[in-house]
């Protein structure tokens, strides 16, 4: 009897604890949420800078800003898993450019079309940043984000190696021209070949080839565009004849050739890893987003230089990076208003001037981008500002993630010699058209 009573008392205690535990935190969250906003972003240097500016915003307005950083490889998964809830844990997500389609069409992002012109000087911001980071569909004038971080892919190089008189003389003797930062992909190939000395643990170049998320596609597509290929026709969504055209095949063969001059493990180098092979002093030229380059400067100092993506003929195209601020449609209107306050504050020219002083705080503000002060502030600002005029992005339709995983897989198979470049690109064309057809986007030419 006593035993039964004891069990009954224990059960009642557990029940009371559970009920109390379920109820109380909600009330606490409600109180705190009224005065704070949560921003989710990837784990990298600019997010630190955003937190610092958020602290200034709190001093001015009393609204706390919490920037949560999530590792790049799991960023997309975590954000979209959170969007699957009725209410998101973040008020603002600094979403990748390709997400804009899914965010806009699935009711995840709050539409900002009417609000933006009332709060932000839209003419002050680079048109490509609006088009690629904020607008969906392209050219519609409907906005679902405001520019936060504008980014592009570039190269970091060993300035000390390039300036070494012995290296210069040897290069001239071999290639009959001066050793300089490569302006064309052909020159790039020669410089990579020249510096590739595996016996001395020196390697020529490290392109982006990571199989997780998007780094292989981001690294490859700009070479493809520069060679004259493309992912497809944005009007008809036809991929056959575009992604597998002769120029695209040639570009993939070229990427494979570059890998001959790459360090060990170069068949799977994501953003942090190309940076790593630069920081460990082994590789002459590494491809990465400019926002990763502050670490290269911190580690390598004056030995690090930076240059824009090379051209082929008169064509130079750079993979767009960067993200826009999007307000979650799954938070209460009061939180959305606080989020708007922060975005309007952040995009003021005075605050953007502070933003560019943060590591990799890349602005889309045209006046600041053109200013000598910005271009001279860091060794990578000048090539970054130049890159903005050559930006292009992957598909940003709601089906982008399926398109991306197909591209990642088959380009990867071409690098692994499982498929020839032509076979891999044919497979991408076929799969991409299938995805577009299922989504009802594919049109007859």
């Amino acid at each position, binding site marked *: 009897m006593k035993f*039964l009573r004891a069990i009954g008392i224990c059960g009642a205690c557990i029940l009371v604890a559970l009920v109390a535990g379920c109820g109380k935190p909600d009330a606490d969250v409600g109180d705190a949420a009224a005065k704070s906003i949560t921003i989710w972003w990837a784990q990298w240097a600019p997010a630190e800078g955003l937190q610092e500016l958020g602290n200034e915003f709190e001093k001015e307005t009393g609204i706390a800003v919490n920037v949560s950083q999530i590792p790049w490889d799991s960023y997309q998964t975590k954000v*979209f*898993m959170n*969007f*699957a809830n009725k209410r998101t844990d973040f008020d603002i997500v600094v979403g990748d450019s390709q997400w804009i389609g*899914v965010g806009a069409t699935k009711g995840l992002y709050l539409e900002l079309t009417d609000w933006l012109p009332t709060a932000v000087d839209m003419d002050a911001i680079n048109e490509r940043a609006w088009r690629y980071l904020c607008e969906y569909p392209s050219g519609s004038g409907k906005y679902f984000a405001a520019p936060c971080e504008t980014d592009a892919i570039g190269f970091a190089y060993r300035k000390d190696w390039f300036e070494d008189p012995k290296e210069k003389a040897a290069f001239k003797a071999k290639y009959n021209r001066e050793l300089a930062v490569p302006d064309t992909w052909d020159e790039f190939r020669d410089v990579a070949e020249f510096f590739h000395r595996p016996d001395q643990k020196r390697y020529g170049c490290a392109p982006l080839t990571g*199989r997780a998320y998007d780094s292989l596609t981001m690294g490859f597509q700009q070479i493809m565009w520069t060679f004259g290929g493309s992912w497809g026709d944005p009007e008809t969504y036809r991929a056959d004849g575009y992604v597998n055209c002769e120029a695209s095949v040639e570009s993939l063969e070229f990427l494979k050739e570059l890998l001959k001059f790459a360090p060990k493990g170069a068949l799977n180098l994501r953003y942090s890893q190309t940076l790593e092979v630069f920081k460990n002093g082994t590789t002459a030229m590494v491809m990465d987003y400019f926002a990763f380059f502050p670490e290269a400067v911190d580690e390598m100092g004056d030995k690090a230089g930076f240059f824009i993506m090379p051209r082929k003929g008169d064509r130079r195209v750079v993979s767009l990076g960067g993200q826009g601020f999007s307000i979650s449609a799954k938070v209460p209107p009061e939180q959305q208003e606080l989020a708007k306050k922060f975005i309007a504050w952040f995009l003021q020219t005075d605050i953007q001037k502070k933003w560019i002083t943060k590591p990799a705080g890349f602005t889309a503000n045209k006046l600041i981008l053109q200013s000598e002060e910005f271009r001279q502030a860091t060794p990578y600002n000048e090539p970054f500002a130049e890159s903005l005029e050559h930006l292009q992005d992957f598909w940003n339709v709601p089906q982008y*993630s*399926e398109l991306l995983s197909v591209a990642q897989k*088959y380009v990867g198979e071409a690098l692994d010699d499982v498929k020839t470049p032509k076979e891999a690109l044919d497979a991408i064309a076929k799969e991409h058209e299938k995805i577009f057809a299922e989504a009802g986007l594919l049109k007859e030419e």
Partner: protein
Amino acid sequence: MVSQRTGLLKYGFVGPALVVLIVLNIFPLLYNVVLSFTDAELVGGGARYVGGSNYSRVFSTAEFVEAIRTTAVFVAAAVSIELCLGFCLALALQRGFRGKSAILTVLLIPMMLSPAVMALFWHQILSGDYGILNHILAAVGLGQPEWLTAPGLKLISILMIDVWMWTPFMMLIALAGLNSIPQYIYEAAEIDRAGAWRIFRRITLPMCAPLLALAVLLRTTDALKQFDLVMAVTGPNDAATQTLSALLFQKVFGDGKTGLGSAYACVLLVIVIALASVFTRYIDFIQRKQGKTQQ
């Protein structure tokens, strides 16, 4: 009165476990089956009934066939290597010797560690450029393969880690099987002047077989779901190492196709159940056979 209370008490003890089973196992399973007939996506919109189109898509795509092939190769290689090594280790450890318990403890450590953490450690060890394994190979004048990125080596590297982690499990079960064989049977065989090979083939192996089959069953069902090592070594979207579980993850969390991913999950479940029932029938068969022999 007392028996009524005892009856209630029984339900009181069984009830919570039953609720947990229904909430955490049976409901998600049924919900997954329902989702597999819809076009549900990870975010946005409701789910529409689409009949068996997800299943027809699963069976018509090349990636499913490739994932089945990769998974089959992995399971067959991992389980057979682990079984052979585990059984050999068990035979070596069967007899008592000085330091046996210390060696046994050390051998069991890999099995007790988290697969995800171990995969990250092995990622460092196998790194082509700075990994300790390649440094050792270089020191003895051997080549330095790119374990984690060379197309032919990626799956082998995952296999190596799996074998390292799970051979102790096979060893443990084989050791239990060996210790359960009565000593008098060996003594009788010696009196009959049976040779070591004959004793092994006619006594040791058959008497261990039910436990070894159980170990193979457990490892096979586990290896079929291989996911964490693939994620840590190459990521889920690398064609060379994409197992069924990795493909399922990619469909649901990479592509956001919850309905399609649920269909993959159902297919994987059917494969696991089919294999498990084959093994359990085999175990039953062995036990019945042994029962008859003993009679």
